C-alpha cells in the first residue's frame, strides 16, 4: 500500500503485487501479534502478571472454540454467499448430541466423536433439504436469511423440546484443576485448550495441503474462477457443509466442556462472537477466522480484568459492530474487487 507507484510491464507488476500481498499478509499478522503483546504487557502492568496470564489462558480456550466455530461460518459465507444464522445452533446440536450419546451408554470421548459426526450429518441434511432446493429456485437474500433463521429456530427448539431448557453439563468431572505455578486451569479446560489448539493446527494444515482444502479456499476466494478450472461444484459444497458441521460440533463440545454448564440458548449469543471472528478475519478466509476467533476470545477474557465478567459477551458484540463499521473487509482482507 505504501509502495510508490511506478510504471512497469504488466507481468512484472503482477509478480510484484503477488510478492507484495504475500509480504503484506504476514506483516499484518505480525502487527496484530505485536498489538496483542502490547495489550498484554499493559494489562500485566495495570492488573498484575498472574491475573493477566490467567485471563490469557482463558482467552485461548475461548479463542479455540470461537475460531473453530467461525471456520464453518466463514466457509459457508464465502462459498455459498449464505449468512448462516443457524450456525450457532449447530454448535448447540454438537453439545446435545454428546449428551444424547453419553446417555445411550457411550463413553464420553466416543460420544463426543459421535456427536461431531452427527452434527456434520445434520449440516449435510440441511444442505439437501433446505439450501440446495433454495439455490435451484434462485432464492433472494431475504428468503435465504429467513430460511436460515427458521432453520436455527427448528434446530434450537427441537433440542429444547427433547432435552428441556434447564442448565446441563456434559457429565464430566468439572471440579479437578491443574496448578501451573500460581495459575489454575480446570482439567477439562486444559483438555479443551489442547484439543482446540491441536484442531486449529490440523485444520490449518488440511486447508493448506489437502486437495479439498485448496478447492474450498479457491471457491471461497473466487467462485467463477474455481468453476472454470474444473472443480466439481456440488462436491465442494457438500464437503463444505460436512467440514463446517464437524467443526461446529467440535466447537460446541469445546464450549460445553470449557464453560461447564449450558442450556440450548447459547447458540445465538455465541453466533455473534462467531460473526465477529468471521468479519475480523475477512469473510471466506478460513485462517482469518481462526485468528479472528483468538482475538475475540482474548479480548473477551481480558475485558474481565476491567469489567464484571457478565459483560463478556458484550465485548464480542461491540467488536462485531466496530469491525463492520470501520474494517468490513477484515484484518487480512483487501478492498473488494468488482466481482
Amino acid at each position: 500500500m505504501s509502495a510508490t507507484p511506478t510504471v512497469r510491464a504488466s507481468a512484472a507488476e503482477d509478480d510484484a503485487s503477488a510478492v507484495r500481498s504475500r509480504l503484506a499478509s504476514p506483516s499484518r499478522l505480525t502487527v496484530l501479534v505485536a498489538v496483542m503483546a502490547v495489550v498484554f504487557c499493559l494489562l500485566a502492568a495495570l492488573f498484575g502478571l498472574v491475573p493477566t496470564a490467567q485471563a490469557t489462558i482463558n482467552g485461548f480456550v475461548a479463542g479455540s472454540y470461537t475460531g473453530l466455530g467461525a471456520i464453518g461460518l466463514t466457509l459457508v459465507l464465502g462459498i455459498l454467499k449464505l449468512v448462516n444464522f443457524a450456525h450457532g445452533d449447530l454448535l448447540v446440536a454438537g453439545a446435545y448430541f454428546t449428551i444424547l450419546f453419553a446417555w445411550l451408554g457411550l463413553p464420553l470421548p466416543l460420544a463426543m466423536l459421535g456427536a461431531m459426526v452427527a452434527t456434520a450429518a445434520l449440516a449435510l441434511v440441511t444442505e439437501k433439504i433446505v439450501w440446495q432446493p433454495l439455490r435451484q429456485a434462485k432464492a433472494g437474500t431475504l428468503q435465504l436469511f429467513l430460511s436460515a433463521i427458521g432453520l436455527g429456530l427448528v434446530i434450537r427448539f427441537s433440542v429444547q423440546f427433547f432435552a428441556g431448557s434447564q442448565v446441563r453439563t456434559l457429565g464430566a468431572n468439572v471440579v479437578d484443576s491443574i496448578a501451573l505455578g500460581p495459575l489454575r486451569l480446570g482439567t477439562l479446560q486444559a483438555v479443551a485448550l489442547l484439543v482446540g489448539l491441536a484442531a486449529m493446527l490440523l485444520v490449518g494444515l488440511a486447508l493448506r495441503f489437502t486437495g479439498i482444502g485448496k478447492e474450498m479456499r479457491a471457491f471461497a476466494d473466487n467462485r467463477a474462477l474455481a468453476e472454470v478450472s474444473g472443480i466439481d461444484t456440488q462436491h465442494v459444497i457438500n464437503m463444505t457443509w460436512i467440514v463446517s458441521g464437524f467443526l461446529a460440533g467440535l466447537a460446541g463440545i469445546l464450549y460445553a466442556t470449557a464453560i461447564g454448564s449450558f442450556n440450548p440458548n447459547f447458540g445465538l449469543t455465541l453466533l455473534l462472537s462467531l460473526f465477529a471472528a468471521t468479519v475480523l478475519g475477512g469473510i471466506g478466509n478460513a485462517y482469518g477466522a481462526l485468528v479472528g476467533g483468538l482475538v475475540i476470545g482474548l479480548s473477551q477474557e481480558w475485558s474481565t480484568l476491567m469489567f464484571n465478567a457478565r459483560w463478556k459477551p458484550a465485548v464480542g458484540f461491540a467488536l462485531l459492530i466496530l469491525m463492520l463499521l470501520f474494517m468490513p473487509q477484515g484484518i487480512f482482507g483487501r478492498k473488494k474487487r468488482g466481482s
Partner: protein
Amino acid sequence: MSVDFWINVGVLAGIYGIFTLGLQLNAGFTGLLNFGQAGFMAIGAYSIGILVVDHGWSLWLALPAAVLLACLASVVVGISSLRLRSDHFAIATIAFAEIVRYTLQNAAFSGGNQGILGFDDEWRAASGWMLSKLGAFGLGGYTQLPLLLVVWLSFVALLLALQGLQRTGWGRVLRAIREDEDATAALGKNVLSYKLQSLGLAAALAAIAGFFVALNVTYLYPTVFDPTFTFFGYAILVLGGFASYGGVAIGSLVFWALLEGTRLIDASLSAGQQASLRFIIVGLFLLLLSRLRPQGLLGNVNEMKVRP
C-alpha cells in the same frame, strides 16, 4: 375454548401487527433488513416502565417520550450501520437487539431479570372505566376486552396512516430506494436520510407495540423482548405478504390463531415442550413460506426485491 382465550389471541395479533407494520415499512417498502425490531420494542417498553416507576411520570406522557427515545436509538443504529451492505446491516441490527437484551438483563436500572412492576395503575383505572361502560352491553366480564379494543383501534389508525404515507411522494421515494438505490441517489434524493426516516418510523411503531406488550403482561422482564421475537414479526410479514399493509393484519391474525391454537391440542405435553413446539412451528413457517410462497398470501412477487 373460552372467549377470553380468543380475546388474548386478538390482543397478541394486534400488538404484533403494529410491530410488523414497522418491518413491512423497512423490509417490504424500503428494502432494509431490520433484524433488530425487538430491540426497539424493548427500549420503548422499558422507557415507559422506568419513567413511570422511577421518575413518577404519567403513563400517558411516558408513551410519547418512549416513542421518541426509540426513534433516537434508531438514529444512532441507523447512522452507524445504514451505510453497510444489506447483509452486514442485518447482522449489525441483530447484534443491537442482543446488546439491548443483554443490557436489560444485567444492568441495575432495568431491574435485571427481576424486571419492572407497577407502571400500569393509570391504564387499569382507564380499563376499569371502559369495562363499566361495556357492562351496559353485557360484556363487563371480559377483563382484556378494553385492551383488545384499544390495540386494534391503534393498529387500524396506524395502518391507514401508513397506507396514506405510501401513496405520497415520500412513499414512492422509499420504493425507488428499494428498487435501485444508486438511481434514486442520482435523482438527487438523500438516500441515507430517507432510510433513517423509514427506520425511525419502524422504531416508533415498535415502541408503541412495546407499550401494549407492557400493558398486556403487566410486568417487564427481558425475555419478553428476546431478539427472536423480531422473527415472529418476519413470519407474520411473509405470511401476510410483502409490500402489503393489509396483509400484516391478516398475517398476524392467522399466525397467532395457529400459534396459540397449538395450546389447545397438545394437552399431553409439558409447558416447556409446548413453548418449544411453538418456536419450532414458527421456524417451519419461515422455512416453508420462503420456499413455497416467498411473496406471502397477499404479496406481490414484483415488489419483493431486496438489494444484495
